[in-house]
């Protein structure tokens, strides 16, 4: 019990939510162990000690700079096609060659990175918001409300994500906002489950009981006591679902249901390149594929490092 409250306060301290939690009805004994013998390193320190996590963070920042800053330094025409320039091999003028309609690949990778990252992270954040709300309410209310809400989650979880995505993307015109919503609909479920589990165990903890005892309203308790304590799990889930969303977007694009051209994303570029894989146009296939793998690996490493930083038990082992 005491060890667990350690986790909570480490998180709270780092995320700047301490003042909110300490105010009001928190009994002192729920907070104190954090300052006791263990004196854990702050979340940031623990994260920075994880070399893989730092490498992942550096790689992700690099990819983001490449995508968002790159187009300003390396300007290319990504709107008008130029068939005369199609399928050029890498040269000084086109460091990574051109594709089948004459777009410069290096420039296109940057633009495509923007939509891949924006779609991936927007979907992940939206999904985590939905899932957290759903899970916190279910776990906190318990009883039949919990049962019904969780059977809804189970039902959605049983539908293979790509199948649902294909149905939705074939029915609606797959624009960027539609894709964000579709991917979010597919990935809020795990968050809901995890948050529900944590809320379920938190609601019987002493400081929540005490809050209820002094007459705090349910909504207030959820916002002030439950949510700050599960911020860590949510952060991990945001990163992991962003990785999944980027992969799912790639799969959708491969199946021809990604955002339509001239919008670009890595999945679509890769899928496009596969049509020419047998012609030896390696520059159509490898750069986009490597960027996807690099980004997803980086995000997963960050997620793992965050999980480890939040999970004090792992550090003690």
């Amino acid at each position: 019990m005491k060890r667990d409250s350690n986790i909570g306060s480490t998180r709270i301290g780092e995320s700047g939510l301490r003042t909110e939690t300490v105010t009001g009805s928190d009994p002192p004994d729920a907070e104190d162990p954090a300052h006791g013998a263990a004196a854990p390193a702050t979340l940031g320190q623990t994260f920075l000690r994880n070399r893989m996590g730092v490498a992942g963070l550096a790689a992700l920042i690099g990819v983001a700079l490449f995508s968002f800053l790159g187009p300003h330094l390396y300007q290319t025409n990504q709107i008008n096609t130029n068939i005369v320039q199609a399928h050029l091999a890498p040269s000084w003028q086109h460091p990574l060659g051109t594709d089948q309609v004459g777009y410069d690949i290096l420039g296109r990778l940057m633009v495509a990175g923007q939509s891949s990252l924006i779609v991936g992270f927007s979907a992940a954040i939206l999904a985590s918001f939905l899932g957290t709300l759903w899970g916190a309410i279910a776990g906190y209310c318990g009883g039949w409300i919990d049962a019904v809400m969780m059977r809804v989650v189970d039902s959605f979880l049983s539908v293979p994500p790509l199948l649902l995505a294909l149905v939705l993307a074939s029915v609606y015109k797959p624009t960027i906002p539609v894709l964000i919503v579709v991917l979010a609909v597919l990935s809020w479920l795990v968050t809901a489950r995890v948050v529900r589990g944590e809320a379920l165990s938190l609601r019987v903890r002493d400081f929540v009981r005490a809050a209820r005892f002094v007459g705090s309203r349910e909504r207030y308790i959820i916002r002030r006591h439950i949510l700050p304590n599960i911020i860590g799990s949510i952060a991990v889930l945001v990163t992991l679902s962003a990785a999944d969303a980027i992969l799912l977007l790639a799969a959708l694009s491969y199946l021809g249901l990604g955002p339509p051209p001239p919008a670009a994303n890595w999945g679509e570029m890769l899928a496009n390149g596969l049509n020419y894989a047998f012609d030896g146009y390696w520059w159509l296939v490898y750069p986009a594929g490597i960027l996807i793998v690099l980004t997803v690996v980086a995000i997963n490493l960050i997620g793992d490092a965050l999980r480890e930083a939040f999970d004090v038990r792992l550090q003690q082992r």
Partner: protein
Amino acid sequence: MIAYSLWRVSQGLLVVLGVTVIVFVLVHLLPGGPGALLGERATPEQIKAFLQANGYDKPIYEQYINYLRQLLHGDLGYSYLHNATVSSLLAQNLPKSALLVGLSYIVALAVAIPFGLMQALRRNRAVDYVLTGLSLVGYSMPVFWIALVLISLFAINYNILPPVGPSGATVSEVVQQPANLVLPVLTLSVVTVAQFSRFVRSSAIDVLVQDYVRTARSKGISEWHVVSRHVVRNSLLPIITLIGLSLPGTLSGAVVTESVFNYPGMGLLFWNAAAAHDIPVLLGFTLVVSVSVVVGSMVADVLYAVCDPRIR
């Protein structure tokens, strides 16, 4: 044990009901409503006649009950594109997908279990780092990219395996072309191996620090016995649940794999249906595949209870 199984099955039935609601709602979310089931070239008169004939003009709860009644009679809808009932298309294609997915699970387990155990036993050594890195990369690759890498390696560079999947209408025809099966099965296994080996590793690490393992070691039992008797048995149990949980993801991978290799399963049919807006097939397949996922995880949980008396 029986009480647990009954409880689990009843939960499963509720989830099946939930899935039917999702698919039912999807029908009504179609732009243009259920009339879209007829396809894009239907005239307004045809749509009106169709809506009336199928009771889509009745109140929504009545429609839902009617929909459930149809499902219970095995009526999943009619594909105007293939001019066949959705259930007959399913009967033709689902077994072939089941073969692909089943084989890939066997391969994945055969590789992932020894890998994961080796990583746990050699934790934080070179082997562990290499395998962890590999599984991370494997997990982070889009399925169609894995397929391409395998094709270019085995079919183009070394020319030892055919780059397309088997063809044929039945499972027995498919099985007769084992060489064509290798690459699709391998492709689908890579992601599963990556997931499972990570899981086996952490599960085995959890078991290795348990008191009973220390006791076994202190009794002087040989390391091999400790691992095979205590560690393996206890750390592999949760895999049963993982198989159930990973099923939706693997089936998603199967759709991509089948479309890459032109493997004649439900994934290929589903993809073609999505491209052609053949909505009855999309919805019918979504329903059946989701229900089989529910049944799969139900079986997994009951099996788990059979294997692990602590659950009961």
